[in-house]
């Protein structure tokens, strides 16, 4: 409920009785009267009200008569109190509301025909509802339109000063990029300081604007709401899994909207724990890749040096013949496949079934290998396979330990849950990162650590918990042996040494450990700084150690969770697209599971203990033992550093099949290129990082001759003479439903059951001693330069991009083009004698590139950041690939480089 929300989820407001239209109604004390009236099903018009923020009371529409008051009162800003007698209907109220509409209309231009909000405008609706036909004193404002922002146009002639945009930016997004300003005699909404708007461009202000005052530059004047076909689907960019409406006209995507709108204004503030229904900049403005002119439309086959357009039948037969020939000559293990985790669950399932039962190889992997596998493998020790917490639990946590995750950049909508926890529920948030992140600025304990020391810091926390005796007696007494082993393991650690290593004072480590351990509901959230950095698997295990000794495992509202970069990384694991997993996921070597799947697929599985993951596949390609590689949506040439020999590996192949919506760098090397559909043309499901399975629905027909990914797998399988009797997505779904009962628990994630016993009682002792032995930072490949010019270079995600896919979206490229900018601490820039925009040479032992320097006050000295999304210049090639010894995850996000003036 709005107005004064309860500051802690544990407190329950008192229940009161009041009378509305003669009916007795019970409500919570202190909430807005408007909410109480709305909860009885009465709809009172209101133009400035939205449930996600506190009532603002500017429109004057929600008038009701309260007994004992002479004039009508605004119900939104009035608090419900006991014994209130309220009337919500009557001719006098209609006249009073009509006056308010007339007031707004008298300074509103009658430009509905050219307004993008025409037909989706609250002022229009209200004028119709109240029969406003005659405006005696209308005077237009004649304010010029503010088109300075890259994304949004502000036409303040149409503004009714409801303040919804300002409130949602301040209360929900906590960015506060907009403000009211009195200009030219009118109150106008302007970006802070009347500058061109520069913000995260989530577009929530656009969604809640009840009139056409804020409009979208990318679809300006291109539509009227009634022309658009609205398809509810799931966003394909990150693991948050936001629901969105793709609005299409014929074959074009015109705009993207979501549930968040001025139309859906009635709700309970407590509902926002499951998301406020909004989107981020990628979801809302990054749709242009769907109908991009660069999309592949016809299969391409290599003839000599060029790729030639070929009919589907011919291309499929060619692929099948070549695969069959390679299988016959070198055995099925000479074939490998890698698929992107942006595909739907159905694509992923059919892909692994195709590789395992039709080809007969277990050399298959997905892009979850870039990090999420670390988390899943660690969780499997506890019998779980994914993040433990739902967004509701994160919102209502008392303490959130956010490790190595710039969550506002990587998963902007998930970060709103933490922002709500901070702002509404007053949670303590501990942010551990090597730079000042946006969430760190809001957090109560922002800790800056030396790059690459996340694991040492976590182990320091574990030691501090043991030292300060903050352990949970109940859990520890259940597992005395395991605790003794852990105690023994951390005894060798020195907090002073860890403090020197991480750059965090011992007192601070102790304080943070106390805050974390003493809260009844603590959640650990880890991101790319943990799972994508050296020995990430061990770091996640250390996080689990921290959670279990403080008794945070198995308790409601506690747990260890992660955020994922791609939309369906969790689904890729669940569908068994990894050499170590069968769908479920269960271990590939588990004899019971193997028998089940062999029986279901009516074909033997590849032998146990076999199977190569991503980096091993590349190694085998280099050695010439893999002859054919099937890449679905993956672009390793643009993703992996040159130093892992990817170019050599691809050149060694006899057959490289690429299946992608675009002709990527890798596809240009391919022998066969199949045009695939984007998510907007597919039917299927995606599993988000919480384990929610959500629908993807086709908004458009496939572009040209491009085809859905699993159709192509089935096509090749049938050309090879194998049986894959799927004709519709529902056939694949039926098979998954049958074999993985309960997986399609659509929209809800199954609660994660944690079993501590098997983990802590078997082999934990040895394991923990091993893990805490070498807590030194893995030596980073040092550049050949003096320490003065040596820097830590991070490859980071930025909010405006996701993987390489978003660089195909013209809107996002307009917001965040490739400027070849390396962000550095201003002090470093000064000490190197560089100015903003100076040409610099960044070099490592792997080579050097030329970039431009840009000061970023968020960075500490010695740290610099480059966005990982841009291929040119090849900054990624400066990195060496470090393999995880257990999970074989490649780490190439952090390196040491030398920087000098070019």
């Amino acid at each position, binding site marked *: 409920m709005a107005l004064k929300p309860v500051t802690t989820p544990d407190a329950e407001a008192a229940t009161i009785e009041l009378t509305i239209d003669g009916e007795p109604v019970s409500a919570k004390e202190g909430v807005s009267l408007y909410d109480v009236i709305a909860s009885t099903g009465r709809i009172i018009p209101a133009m400035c009200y939205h449930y996600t923020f506190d009532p603002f009371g500017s429109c004057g529409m929600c008038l009701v008569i309260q007994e004992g008051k002479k004039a009508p009162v605004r119900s939104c800003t009035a608090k419900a109190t006991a014994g209130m007698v309220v009337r919500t209907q009557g001719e006098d109220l209609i006249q009073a509301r009509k006056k308010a509409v007339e007031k707004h209309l008298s300074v509103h231009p009658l430009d509905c*025909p*050219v307004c993008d909000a025409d037909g989706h405008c609250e002022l229009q609706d209200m004028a119709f509802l109240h029969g406003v036909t005659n405006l005696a004193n209308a005077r237009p404002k004649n304010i*010029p*339109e503010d*088109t*300075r922002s890259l994304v949004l146009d502000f036409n303040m002639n149409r503004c009714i000063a409801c303040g919804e945009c300002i409130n949602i930016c301040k209360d929900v997004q906590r960015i506060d990029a907009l403000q009211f300003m009195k200009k030219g005699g009118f109150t106008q909404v302007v970006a802070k300081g009347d500058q*061109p708007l520069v913000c995260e461009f989530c577009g929530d202000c656009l969604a809640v604007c009840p009139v056409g005052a804020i409009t979208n530059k990318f679809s300006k*004047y291109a539509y*009227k709401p*009634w022309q658009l076909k609205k398809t509810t689907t799931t966003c394909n960019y990150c693991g948050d899994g936001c629901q969105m409406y793709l609005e299409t006209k014929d074959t074009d995507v015109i705009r993207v909207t979501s549930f968040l709108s001025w139309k859906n204004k009635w709700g309970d503030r407590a509902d926002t724990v499951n998301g406020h229904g909004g989107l981020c900049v990628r979801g809302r403005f990054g749709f242009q890749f769907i109908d991009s002119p660069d999309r592949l439309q016809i299969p391409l086959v290599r003839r000599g040096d060029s790729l030639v357009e070929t009919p589907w039948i011919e291309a499929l037969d060619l692929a099948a013949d070549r695969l069959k020939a390679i299988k016959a000559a070198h055995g099925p293990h000479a074939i490998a496949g890698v698929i992107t985790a942006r595909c739907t669950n159905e694509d992923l399932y059919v892909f692994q079934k195709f590789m395992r039962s039709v080809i007969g190889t277990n050399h298959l992997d997905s892009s979850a290998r870039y990090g999420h596998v670390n988390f899943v493998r660690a969780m499997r020790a506890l019998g779980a396979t994914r993040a433990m917490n739902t967004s509701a639990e994160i919102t209502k946590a008392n303490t959130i330990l956010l490790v190595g995750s710039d969550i506002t950049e990587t998963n902007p909508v998930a970060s709103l849950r933490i922002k709500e926890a901070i702002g509404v529920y007053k949670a303590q948030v501990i942010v551990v990162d090597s730079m000042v992140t946006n969430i760190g600025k809001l957090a109560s304990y922002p800790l800056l650590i030396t790059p690459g020391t996340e694991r040492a810091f976590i182990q320091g926390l574990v030691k501090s918990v043991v030292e300060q005796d903050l352990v949970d007696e109940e859990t520890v007494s259940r597992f005395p042996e395991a605790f003794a082993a852990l105690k023994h393991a951390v005894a060798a650690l020195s907090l002073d040494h860890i403090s020197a290593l991480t750059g965090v004072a011992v007192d601070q480590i102790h304080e943070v450990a106390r805050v974390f351990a003493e809260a009844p509901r603590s959640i650990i959230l880890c991101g790319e700084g943990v799972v994508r950095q050296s020995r990430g698997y061990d770091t996640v295990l250390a996080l689990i150690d921290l959670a279990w000794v403080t008794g945070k495992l198995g308790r409601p509202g506690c747990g260890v969770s992660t955020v994922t970069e791609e939309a369906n990384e969790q689904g890729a694991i669940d569908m068994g697209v990894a050499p170590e997993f069968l769908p479920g996921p269960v271990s590939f070597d588990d004899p019971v599971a193997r028998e089940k799947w062999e029986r279901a697929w009516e074909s033997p599985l590849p032998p146990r203990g076999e199977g190569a993951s991503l980096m091993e596949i590349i190694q085998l390609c280099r050695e010439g033992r893999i002859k054919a590689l099937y890449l679905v949506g993956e672009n390793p040439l643009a993703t992996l550093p040159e130093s892992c020999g990817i170019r050599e590996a691809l050149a060694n192949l006899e057959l490289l099949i690429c299946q992608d919506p675009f002709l990527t760098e890798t596809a240009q090397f391919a022998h066969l290129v199949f045009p695939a559909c984007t998510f907007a043309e597919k039917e299927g499901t995606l599993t988000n990082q919480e384990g929610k399975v959500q629908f993807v629905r086709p908004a458009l027909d496939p572009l040209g001759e491009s085809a859905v990914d699993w159709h192509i797998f089935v096509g090749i399988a049938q050309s090879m003479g194998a049986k894959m009797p799927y004709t519709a997505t529902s056939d694949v779904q039926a098979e998954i439903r049958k074999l993985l009962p309960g997986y399609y628990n659509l929209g809800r994630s199954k609660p994660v059951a944690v079993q501590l016993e098997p983990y802590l009682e078997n082999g934990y002792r040895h394991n923990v001693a091993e893990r805490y032995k070498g807590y030194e930072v893995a030596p980073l490949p040092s550049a050949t330069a003096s320490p003065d010019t040596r820097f830590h270079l991070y490859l980071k995600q930025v909010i405006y991009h996701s993987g390489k896919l978003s660089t195909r979206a013209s809107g996002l490229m307009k917001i965040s083009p490739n400027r070849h900018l390396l962000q550095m601490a201003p002090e470093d820039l000064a000490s190197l004698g560089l100015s903003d925009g100076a040409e610099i040479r960044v070099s490592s032992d792997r080579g050097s590139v030329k970039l431009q320097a840009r000061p970023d006050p968020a960075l500490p000295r010695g740290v610099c950041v480059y966005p990982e999304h841009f291929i040119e210049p090849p900054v990624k090639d400066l990195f060496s690939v470090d393999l995880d010894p257990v999970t074989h995850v490649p780490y190439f996000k952090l390196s040491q480089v030398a920087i000098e003036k070019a």
Partner: protein
Amino acid sequence: MKSTSTAKKFWDTVLFREIWDAMKVTFKHMFHRPMTFQYPREKRTIPDTHRGALGLLRYDDGKERCVGCDLCEAACPSRCIKVISEEDKSMPLERYASEFYIDITKCVFCGYCVEACPVNALAMTKLYEYSTHDKRTLLFDKKRLYEIGDRYIEDAKKYLYAHNLEKDDEASRAYRYHFPEPVLKSNDS
């Protein structure tokens, strides 16, 4: 039933009375002006309210009236109109119809689109002679509609006048939509 005498029946039969009655009408028409027109040599005068082919109009300064608001498409009961609008590249912030189609084979000439148009950009003319051997030419595009509008501008104005939509050029200017100016770009960008 009226009983007629046998004698009357006899004389009617002998004198072919029915024939004379019928011929009376025929001979009367010999002294009338002819009812038919010798189309296409002769054409009839058409009233101003006549609903003929649709045309798109311009203001007297030559600017297209249509702002691409799509209300005609929404009002059309036979769904024969298609409007594609966008921002005018040469005139920032001005909305116009980049494409405009009327499938005249589907049109039922109800005139709702003209009623719906907020800037009176559409009008019906007295043009009805557009029969063709090629049905595809009956999908009127924007160019053809403006040609019709330019050529039959007088008809269109009379139509709008007769339907109480627009009195004169003065009234057309009153309906004209004036777009706001963009804020000047700041110096640094």
